[in-house]
């Protein structure tokens, strides 16, 4: 557990191999974001820059949904903050990896954290991998791929339409559901996961908006797990 963190080409390549199977699942979602951007009157360059700088699909879709002219800058900034707040506990949980990094390696790795790369690198960490380059190995291809998919969607506007309820859009959630399996460590996870799911569903069904169901669920579930762990050391 205490092996020093390294940062090697081998780790980078391992990250690329890990993330490759997840890349196709970004296509439908990226297309929808690009189509939506075109519909809201953004240029190809503008939506490409948005994908490069923001690099967070759900918040881009929500931001574009709230788009208008003049641009509601404060509203879209707040929307991005709210939708992406779930990433704060993710980078906290990855801190054993980040603690060994400094300078651009640290700040670039933090920039590329996604839901997918988070699940995969937690798994690597638990298997004893201390090569932090695995994060960028997953992050950089995802970043370029995501931007390409969104830009392609913008280019296809007028040629095709894809509704946000199309079954292909489910690929994003299906990927995350499948990745959840890799985070399962055994029966001891049942209680915290159950609490997390129950609190999340209850709050969202009660009408609470993003990100409160996910944040409250995640904190409640992990707190219950932590209480249990500390009572029987």
């Amino acid at each position, binding site marked *: 557990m205490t092996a020093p963190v390294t940062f090697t080409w081998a780790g980078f390549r391992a990250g690329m191999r890990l993330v490759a*199977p997840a890349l*196709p699942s970004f296509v439908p979602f990226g297309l929808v974001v690009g189509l939506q951007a075109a519909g809201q*009157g953004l*240029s190809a*360059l*503008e939506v490409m820059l*948005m994908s490069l*700088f923001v690099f967070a699909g759900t*918040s881009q879709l929500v931001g574009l949904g709230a788009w208008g002219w*003049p*641009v509601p*800058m*404060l509203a*879209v*900034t707040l*929307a991005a903050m709210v939708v*992406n707040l*779930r990433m*704060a*506990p*993710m*980078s906290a*949980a*990855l*801190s054993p990896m*980040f*603690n060994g990094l400094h300078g651009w390696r640290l*700040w670039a790795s*933090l920039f590329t954290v996604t839901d997918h790369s988070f699940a995969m690198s937690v798994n690597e960490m638990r298997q004893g991998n201390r090569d932090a380059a695995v994060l960028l190995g997953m992050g950089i291809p995802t970043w370029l791929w995501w931007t390409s998919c969104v830009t392609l969607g913008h280019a296809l506007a007028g040629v095709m339409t894809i509704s946000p309820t199309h*079954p*292909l859009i*489910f*690929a994003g*959630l*299906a990927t*995350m*559901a*499948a990745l959840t*399996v*890799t*985070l399962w460590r055994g029966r001891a*996870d049942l209680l*915290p996961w159950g*609490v*997390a799911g129950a*609190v*999340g*569903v209850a709050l*969202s069904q009660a009408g609470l908006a993003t990100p409160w169901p*996910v944040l*409250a*669920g*995640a*904190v409640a*579930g*992990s707190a219950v*797990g*932590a209480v249990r*762990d*500390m009572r029987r050391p």
Partner: protein
Amino acid sequence: MTEPSLFTLRPEVLLAILGMAAATYACRAGGYAVLRGRRPPRFVQAMLQHLPGCIFVAFILPGVVAQGPLHLAGAAAAVLCMALTRMLTLSIIVGVGVVWGLVAILG
């Protein structure tokens, strides 16, 4: 608003993008930044061990439940396939396929 050309870049759009980018990066880096260089209390360390799975469950389940039983079935199929085969691509295809099939039959 006039129709933009391919490379149109309006200052107000750029500012909005930069705002979204700053907010997003603050979320990504913020969770780690508060922990950097310090050892969190034991309870927080214990919580961090549980956070990854809990975030995923609390993120996916409310979304899938809100979309209805067809998507719940699709998510269950993806989870089951992954648990049995550990093949990510196949599990995504199975999950989407189940939703697509159910929508086509019942939709």
